[in-house]
Structure formats: C-alpha cells, structure tokens
C-alpha cells in the first residue's frame, strides 16, 4: 500500500470514527464515556492525512517532474519495505461501520452468556408513590435476589429490556451491561411469568409492567440466579438511546 493509499485510508478511518462519534452509532459498541476519545482520534487521523498531503505538496513543487525531491525521497524509499500489506485490513472496520453498522449485542449473545448478576453494594431507598416504579433490569434482579425483594413487594414496577429465548423457549427480559466496549458486555436476565404476550420475538424491546415474585430459577449457562417477574402488561418500545446499561457495576 503506497503513501497516497495510506493517507486516503487514514482519512477514511478518521471520518468513520467522527461519523460514529457524532451520531449515536458509537453507543452500539462502546461506553458513552469514550465519546471524546473517539472524536479526538478521528480528528487526529484526519489531521494526519491532511498534514501528509500538505508536506508532500510542499516538498515536491521544486522538482515536480523528475522526482528529485530530497526531502521526501528517503521516506518514500523507506515506505516501500516498511509498509506491509497488513494495512489493507484497516479497510474492514471502515466497511463494517459504514456499510453494515452491526446492531448492538442482542439475544444471540444473551442466550450464550450466563447472567452476570453480582451483589450490589447496597440498596438505596426507592421513591415512594402510587405510579409504577421504573427500575433497571439489573436493579430489579439485584434487589429480588440479594434483598429478597423487600422494597419491591406490593408495588407496580416498570422495566425495559429486550426479549431473549433460551434453548427450550423460556423467555427472559435482558439488558446487557457494559464496562468499556461490547467485547466485555454481559447480560443480566429476568425470567417472565404471568401475562406474557403470546408471541415473543427475540430482540424485541419491551416495557414490562409487573410485580415482584419470590420465584427464582437458575441460568442454564452458568447457574447464576435469575429472578422472576409477574407480568401484568407488556408493550413494545423502540430501542433506547443507549442500548447498554452502563451503571450496573460502576
């Protein structure tokens, strides 16, 4: 890959990162906190591409025709054997992000990974009131398993997550937790009982209203605890702004 192609590739890579960082696209892959770094990296790559072109232009005018440019000739010379074809692989992430933009991890990973529920540090008091209480999947699961649902009894709860079916078709409401990027994403699962919609398609986002039930099961993958939720209503909702839960263990 020659210098010009490399410069073009750097520019494309930088533009792709900027594109991902300025839209919500990056949230499918990395945590929100990485956004400034992603944007900065994109800007640096574009600036490098621009600087390379600029220095080349400046180095060549005196010798535009016979290529006797003293300043850049050694570097060119060197490029030939130092720039291996492995650089071509950098087109893959560019194409993957621009053409395919794969979705956030969903039911496939959830059904292949055990629930990652860990004991929370504590259980802050929940706001009182009659309206259904909004809880995160991991918050409900943590309170149900490690606090025996003490603060949850007798309250209507509203939980949002996506549907995942395990091998024998048992439905779970899942949210993937994220620490850094999707490679370390892990699911927390809630099993559903009660008034479940008759047809559940994996990866559908649902807002489920229900109540606490002491019933529990074990994750077939890693024997982790999975609490049940007694469903009263469930309605499909669009994918949230950030598909991952980034709060559950930070």
């Amino acid at each position, binding site marked *: 890959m*020659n*210098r010009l192609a490399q*410069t073009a590739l*750097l520019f*494309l890579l930088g533009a792709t*990162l900027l594109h*991902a960082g300025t839209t919500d696209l990056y949230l*499918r892959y*990395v945590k929100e906190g*990485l956004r400034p770094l*992603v944007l900065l*990296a994109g800007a640096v790559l574009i600036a*490098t591409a621009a*600087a*390379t*072109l600029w*220095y*080349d232009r400046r*180095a*060549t005018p005196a010798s535009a025709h016979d*290529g006797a440019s*003293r*300043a*850049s*000739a*050694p*570097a*060119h*010379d*060197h490029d*030939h*054997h*130092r720039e*291996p*074809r*492995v*650089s*071509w*692989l950098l*087109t*893959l*992430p560019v194409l*993957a992000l621009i*053409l*395919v933009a794969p979705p956030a*991890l*969903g039911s*496939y*990973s959830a059904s292949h990974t055990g629930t*990652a529920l860990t004991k929370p*540090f504590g259980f802050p008091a929940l706001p009182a009131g009659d309206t259904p209480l909004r809880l995160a999947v991991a918050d409900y699961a943590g309170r149900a398993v490690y606090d025996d649902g003490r603060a949850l009894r007798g309250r209507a709860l509203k939980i949002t997550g996506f549907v995942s079916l395990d091998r024998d078709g048992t439905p779970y409401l899942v949210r993937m937790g994220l620490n*850094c*990027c*999707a*490679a*370390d994403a*892990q699911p927390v699962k809630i099993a559903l009982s009660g008034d479940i919609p008759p047809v559940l398609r994996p990866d559908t986002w649902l807002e489920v209203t229900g109540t606490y039930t002491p019933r529990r099961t074990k994750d077939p993958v*890693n024997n982790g605890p999975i609490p049940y939720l007694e469903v009263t209503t469930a309605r499909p909702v669009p994918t949230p702004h950030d598909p991952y839960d980034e709060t559950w*263990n*930070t």
Partner: protein
Amino acid sequence: MPSRTTRTTGGTGPVAITKTAPQDSGERADPGWGRGRGTDPGRDTGTDPAKEEGRHLNSALLLTLLLLTAVMFQDPIRGSLAAPVMQSWMTVFVAVMVQALPFLVLGVLLSAAIAVFVPPSFFARALPKHPALAVPVAGAAGAVLPGCECASVPVAGALVRRGVTPAAALAFLLSAPAINPIVLTATAVAFPGNPEMVLARFGASLLVACAMGWLWHRLGRTDWLRPPARASYEGQGKGAAFANSVRHDVTHAGGYLVIGAMAAATLKAVVPADWLGLAAGHPVLSVLVLAVLAVLLSICSEADAFVAASLTQFSLTARLTFLVVGPMIDLKLFAMQAGTFGRAFALRFAPATFALAVVVSALTGTVLL
C-alpha cells in the same frame, strides 16, 4: 497528485523493494483473508521501473475500486451477514476496533513525539546505565502511561528505536497496561470486597514485567528483535517527520489490531460459556483456564477487572491470573508485537511471558489472597 507521488518514487523504489520483500511482515500477516494477496499485483513485479510505476498507481486505485465495489454490492454483503452469529461477530469486532483505536492513536502520538522531539541522550540520562537497574525503573515508569495495552506497543517500539536497552523497554511494555492508575482504580471498583486484589495485581504485574526484562537481558539475543530499521526522519522538518511517524504507525499497528480484533470476536461469538463452569472447581485447572481465557478474549485492560469480577465461580487466585496475564499477552497484543518487533521475537517472548505470568500470579494469589 497521484502522478506526482508516483514519479517521485519511481526512480528510487525498485532496489529497496526487491531486496527487502522477503522480510516484509505483511507476508506473514496475510494468511487467510485473501484481500492482500488478491489485490496487490505489485508482489511479483520485477525491477522494471515502468511496472513499479504501475504498482504505485494501483495501490491507491485499488483502494478506490475496493470501496466502490463494496458500496455497489452492499445489499448482498449485508444479506450474507444477517445470521445472528455473524451479527454478533461483527458487533464485537467493530467494538474492539472503536474502543482500541483511540488508545492506539494516543500511543502512536506519544511514540511519534518520542521519535521526533525527544533526543536519544535524554533516555541515556534518565535511565540507570546498567540494564539490570534500568529494568525496574522502566517497569515502574509504566505507571504513568494512562492507557490500555494498545498504547504501550508503539511507545515501547519507539523507546527501542531511541536507543533504550530492549530489556527496559520490554519491562515498560508489560507493566504499563497493568499498573497505571486508571486500571488499578477500575480493579478496586470491580472488587469492592477485596481491596487486596489491587495490591496483588500491582505487585504481580510489576514483578512479571521486571522478571521478563531481566530474563531478556540475560538470555535475549538482539537478532530476535527485528532491527529497528526505520525511516530516519533527519532530512525532514519536524512536522513532516511527526506526520510520517503517525501515518506509518497507525496503518501498521492498526492492521495488526484488526487481526487481533477478528480473533477476539471469533472467540467471543463462537466459544460457548458453559464449559467454563466445568473447570471452576479444580484449583490448578481453574488458574490455567482463566489464563488461557485472558489470552483468547483480548479484553482491554481497563475493562478486564469487571469481567473477572463476574466470573464468580472461580477462585480469587484464578481471577488474579486473568488480570495479570490479560494485559501482558493476548491475541491482539501478540499480533501487534509481531508487527512491531518481528515474529521471531513474538514467538519467544509471548510463551515466556505467559508461563511467568501464570506462575507469579498463582504464587502471589496463594500468599496475598
């Protein structure tokens, strides 16, 4: 612009190419993806300047053609990638790239700054003369590079090129991703009930890094390291040299990062998690299994503590091994080390690091945890 670049290079290129093509590291990194092989007709062009010119034109042209073709056939491409396994594979692949690229860029900027603005004499003054003493100093200096392992490889490469003794640069390479404040804080947050985990991770990682440095000093041979041949940026202005160094390192190390990301995505998407549970009960086996898992998963060192914390069925010692091995050697790092220092180096260095890291963390775990 293209023709101008072509002309400047056409006259001087051929000799260099034919001489050094066999040791081109792209050669070995190009096994199965076909892309490089199929798209690089310059491989067997001879010394004929006319053909050389064609090659340079082609490289940029091919990139354009490749992108246009991909855009034209985007529907079939998307269709063939619709299976859940492929989707999940691509998500993890893109995620590793998006997450690692900023840190790679950070490391590359730092390495370019070292290469261009820091004179070699600085390191000669900053580090103790004797290599055996320089190793722990460099290892401890790893604590100030706030990044993950992708940043440390180009920086270590720049250090070697600036005349730092390889033993010290390697100690830095191994310790930097594991003992910096960000990673240690993440560890403390992930293991709220076991603060000794932070101490164990710090101690074991620094120990392994120094031990590997000393081992290299005793047994290492310079000819295993790829000679630090590198564009001497002397003839150019500082700005041009800086831009060239960044461009070179990003396209070079970035390519290897892609290989590592693909390997990690494959393992994450394909390997079922169930078989992990089988090994958890056995004290020795569990340590080995988590060590291997750390290598295969290639998780960023800033996030691995959270993954380790969730592997609750394993002992603390086994999880410490996961945390010590992961930042020092994994698939992504191996590919990048092979790219920066040469394959002969990586093939010797990686297994030794792995073995030493497992032994040291098992011992540390037995004493501290």
